[in-house]
């Protein structure tokens, strides 16, 4: 399944979760390092060549948010955060501190694998963002600034185009409301989520995306948006 073995560090204090993560990740050809404490995790990551960190936010020895900030002082290696549900604030904080994506506990392994693939592919490709995106009928030619759905050309406004580009470039990784508002409207407007909701509505309509069963743009309630993984 894998060509070159990529290394994933799992920082999680629950032994049972570490176990099934290790079994599943190794079955997918990843090399797994694991530890139950944040300090160990930081020193391990300083010594090893990592491709990804899976981090539980509730560590016994260290606040997960602090782990992210300290890790980000020297490393750009992507982080996927494991967090309990119903704490959007915690997730947004982690994403703002530099985590790349999150999965809510309890989670299915399929969901986690999809996030890992998206994040890893993204880091592979960040150096050379493809000029052409084509998936599930959605096509974006960034050189031409042309968008089409199922071969029907779509005319997008500047902001709509920018929003779609942002989602496509992050390839299924969640982008928070604030990140989108900063990128598309500028830092002054980063709390005007109303604009964002309206813009997403317009974009979905133009793409012919059924908001109740979205094909392209998925809402992450209370956090942000992501490109549907099937499309990413």
């Amino acid at each position: 399944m894998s060509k070159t073995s990529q290394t994933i560090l799992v920082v999680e204090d629950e032994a049972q979760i570490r176990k099934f993560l290790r079994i599943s990740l190794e079955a997918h050809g990843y090399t797994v390092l694991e530890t139950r404490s944040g300090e160990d995790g930081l020193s391990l990551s300083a010594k090893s060549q990592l491709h990804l960190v899976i981090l539980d936010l509730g560590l016994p020895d260290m606040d997960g948010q602090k782990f992210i900030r300290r890790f980000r002082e020297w490393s750009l290696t992507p982080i996927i955060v494991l967090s309990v549900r119903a704490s959007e604030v915690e997730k947004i904080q982690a994403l703002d501190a530099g985590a790349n994506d999150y999965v809510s506990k309890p989670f299915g392994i399929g969901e986690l694998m999809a996030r890992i693939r998206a994040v890893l592919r993204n880091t592979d490709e960040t150096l050379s963002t493809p000029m052409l995106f084509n998936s599930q009928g959605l096509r974006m030619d960034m050189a031409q600034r042309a968008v089409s759905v199922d071969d029907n050309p779509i005319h997008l406004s500047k902001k709509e185009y920018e929003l779609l580009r942002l989602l496509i470039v992050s390839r299924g990784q969640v982008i928070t409301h604030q990140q989108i508002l900063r990128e598309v409207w500028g830092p002054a407007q980063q709390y005007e989520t109303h604009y964002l909701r309206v813009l997403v509505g317009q974009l979905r309509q133009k793409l012919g995306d059924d908001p109740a069963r979205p094909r392209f743009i998925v809402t992450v309630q209370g956090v942000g948006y992501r490109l549907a993984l099937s499309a990413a």
Partner: protein
Amino acid sequence: MQHTTATMEPKAGTSSLRVYAVAIGVVFVTVGLAFLAHKLMPHASLSLLFLTGVLVISVRTGLGPSLLASILSFLAYNFFFTPPYYTFEVADDGDVATLIFFLLMAAITGNLAARMHQEMDKRRTSLRRTSILYEFTRRISSAAGTDVVLDALTDHLSQSMDKSVMVLLVNSGGIPIVRTSAGRPQTLDADVIATAWSLNSPDPIVIEPWHFLKLATKAKTMGMVAIHGQIDADQIDLARSLCDQAIVVLERTQLVADLEQARLVTETEQLRSALLSSVSHDLRTPLASIIGSTSSLLEYGESFSDENRRELLTTILEEAQRLDRYIQNLLDMTRLGQGSLTLRRDWVDLHDIVSSSVTRLQNALKGLVIDINISETVPLMWVHGVLIEQAVVNLLDNAIRFSPADGHISITAAARGDKIDINICDGGPGIPENDREKIFDMFYTVRQGDMGTLHGTGLGLAICRGMIAAHGGDVTAHDGHNNHGTCMRITLPVIRPDELSTA
């Protein structure tokens, strides 16, 4: 009583000088009138005029001024109007009689008048006290809490006596603590309080400059009233009446609070045991499937067909997800119950809420047909998205539970005036008219007894209503389409972007 005289005297002293001056003045006026009348009537009749003057004085004032007025009147009458004129000589024995009459008259009427005045003063005081008491009773009769009663007591005491007043109540440690105060701010030392508290006396306890009155029922002493400065017996009586009134009401409010507390404790206890039994049942049901399936797989897995193995694994996953939903419900209920639910409102598209609710219940929805129809009229909603999503998930979960296999569920939403209606309808057995309100009662399904047929903690709908209510909306149960099944309706108020001052 000594206080009374001590405080009354200076008052009487200042006003009596004026009263004597008035008496003299009236005599002068009478003399003037007598000169005018002298031309019309015989001099003997003039004495009547003077007598009238004396009467006026006596009625208006008291014994002293009337005697003075009568002597002055006699002298003036004698000097000006009896021969020999302009001397104090008495020519006639009849005039001596006149003098005696003057004095007698003055003494009698003066006495009468003085008594009348005393009576009137008493009446006035008692009227004032009655009206203060009445006003006080009126104010505290409807008092719901101790604080209202104490406030009223302090206000009334302070206003009626024009003094600084503090009311102290014993705290749980049995130490009197100042609860309310009125009038000019005063400091009351802790050791003064302690001394006053330790003394036991039905009379006011005086520790200069304070007077202390105990607030005591038959059973116990609840606190004290401290009054700053000199007070007289009337004021003490008044203060005591006010305190007695206050105690009656305080006892009542205390009783109501105690009863309420007792009721709450019983109810909480009942809820707790209902919750525990229902929770353990609900957590065990999926656990039984999980343990059964996994142990089967472990023991005999190798002999199972691939298909059967897969089926068992699917069961384990689905049951675990169900367990997760129950736990989420319990957590939500705790948050709602503790009142620690803080709304983090944001602009949310209803489509997103419905879509993620449906996604979350994907597995449970297998085999059912689901229709989603959200009208164009539904604007963006200013809500805490995750909570509304949970409310929709709970209703949808219910709809799924009561739907027959290959049943039909519809989610529709439309704006209606300044409200948004979200309807979640199923084709299940429906809910009898009488039960449509009861189902939102926590543990209603629990109390129904037979939980085998209706799994779920009975918390789902209560949580749903709690979350919607936190947004100022409501959840109600209605007939389903064509009188078949049930429609659960969430109604939320519409908030427009311009209604928010700052987002």
